[in-house]
């Protein structure tokens, strides 16, 4: 099963190497890893998507927690959470098909961020299902390049009615 780990780390050189090295050394598979500074400039947050059974994930979490630069690890897969990914897709776009592509972009509430002679760059944000769907819809036109940020995720706040 896939798990989403929210990992707070010291914002220091080498931290990413330590985390990535741990995964490769112990043979865990990273599906995606996104990292950036938090509101506290001394702390970065990684969102790691990792595949494995409960035992593997338990080891991943414990081994991560052993790293001195790792402040806190949470497996948020089970919690109510929001997750997003951003993708940039450069798609082949002869003038005669642009209208059709723009319709698809509208449907997905994505954006066109660059127009070239024969191509468009489309920016799309969403959860995994949406990213997959837009990719599939654009594939017939010819995808020239595609880049994704990797998933970032956050646990939802407590609902008002529960307070």
């Amino acid at each position, binding site marked *: 099963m896939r798990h989403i780990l929210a990992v707070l*780390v*010291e914002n220091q050189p080498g931290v990413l*190497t330590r985390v990535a090295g741990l995964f490769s*050394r112990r043979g865990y598979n990273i599906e995606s890893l996104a990292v950036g500074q938090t509101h506290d400039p001394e702390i970065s947050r990684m969102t790691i998507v990792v595949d494995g059974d409960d035992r593997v994930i338990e080891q991943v979490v*414990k081994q991560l927690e052993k790293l*001195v630069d790792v402040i806190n690890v949470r497996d948020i897969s089970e919690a109510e959470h929001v997750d997003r990914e951003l993708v940039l897709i450069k798609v082949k776009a002869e003038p005669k098909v642009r209208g059709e592509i723009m319709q698809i972009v509208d449907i997905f509430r994505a954006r066109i961020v660059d127009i070239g002679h024969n191509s468009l760059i489309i920016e799309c944000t969403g959860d995994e299902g949406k990213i997959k769907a837009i990719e599939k819809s654009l594939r017939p036109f010819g995808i020239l390049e595609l880049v994704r940020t990797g998933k970032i995720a956050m646990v939802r706040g407590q609902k008002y009615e529960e307070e």
Partner: protein
Amino acid sequence: MKMTGADVVIKALEQEGVEVIFGYPGGAVIPIYDKLYDSSIKHVLVRHEQAAAHAADGYARATGRTGVVIATSGPGATNLVTGIANACMDSIPMVVFTGQVALPAIGRDSFQEADITGITLPIVKHSYLVRDVNKLASTIKAAFQLAGTGRRGPVLIDLPKDIQTAEVEFDYPEHVSFRGYRLPGEPSAAEIYQAVKTIGISRRPVIYAGGGVITSGAAEELKEFAEKTQIPVTTTLMGKGAIPEDHPLSLGMVGMHGTYYANFAVSHSDLLIAVGARFDDRVTGRLDTFATQAKVIHIDIDAAELGKNVRPHHVLNGDAKLILQELLSRVEIPQTKEWLDQIAVWKKEHPLSYCQDKDKIKPQYVIEQLRKLAGEKAIVTTEVGQNQMWAAQYYKVSKPRTFISSGGLGTMGFGLPAAVGAQIGRPDDLVISISGDGSFQMNLQELATIVQQQLPIKIIILNNGYLGMVRQWQELFHDKRYSQTELIPVPDFVKLADAYGIAGYRAHSPEEVGPVLEQALNHPGAVVVDVVIDREENVFPMVPAGGTLTKMIGV
């Protein structure tokens, strides 16, 4: 008052109470060695950096204190790699300083530049590359704190040369706090209660003690616990010394070359109490046939070990000594009389044994004689391979920190430099290095260190002219196809000793063994004893790699 980074290093080490450094100078650490020249800290000059790391490791194992190493950048640092990995695998506290090229030169493939923090990433507890001299003192404090607490391990500090010469006010903190490093607390009363209940109703319990018992200083508590509950104790290689091996409840070592009765006891147990041990493959053999009837109580300071290889029924995360004290204070005594009777039968029917020979020297006999002559205070280091396993089987250890061996990494060439460290740390105790002819040749340059430091180490070489353990596997599993395991010619070790100014003795026949060993142990200085043993003697019993513990060969 301002001082240089090199001064800070020496001052910090003095404040940490460091009495000795194991090292080897080079271009990128000259400023530190210049300051060391005026310091009261002793420096042991090795002849190869690998030996510095092993010596610091041996020192740490013999004393319980943190070992300190210095080497230069580039090859000096990379030569430490095996020693650091060795310490990491066996959880040995060590602080390693490496020189580095100056900050502006980093990343340009400068002379003697190596990315040592990168290279050592998977084999350290933590590491630092110091980029700001203002953080040097707190970094050193942090390194000692990390190395010497929790699950111990090596911490590396990479010191660019310009950091060593930069000026700074000396301010050594008493304590450094980390956001991401927490020591486990104590298990809750409920957890202890449940474990106590499980122990109380068990009928065939076994304690399985590892290196964590030695590290936490819990040998007394372990013995008391075993005696009070009448639960037999088996140890890992790293756990030798956790209980006196002549104790009636001691089963000796478990695992691949464990005793018949230890392996049988573990395999038939209904409760396994693992203390500071990690269910290593050399202990468990095939995991799905390991101790299948047993519930497991796993006591360890490292939470990541709990459930890593075996699913425990109860986990007690924390320091072994504290937890054993807790268990002792509430213990419920199980009825183990029948179980102990059964084990006594196994012990009687299948003791450790070998066939004595009239003409050929049996290595097991050498170890037995050595143990008889050396007394219980002696410290033994081993190399890796057959010599190590014969020592583990036949050298009955009475006290913690007297049996020093490379467990996890299995490093040939460890024992001789480790003996240097042990003798430096415990100058008044007899230190014996048990070796094979292959392992000895991996770090024999340290004979010069031994002479220079005037260390009265007794080096016993079990000489069979083979890379013996590999030869044994080739004999048993590869139709005696001895591919590249005959180490002929073996140098004349007596002459070699003489070349270094060390006394050398040789034993050819069984009747010479006792007298030669006695002569060697009575010699006031260092000694090399070349014991020419039966070339194709094997280590038995043996559980083939990945096999089931009860299916031993050679019993």
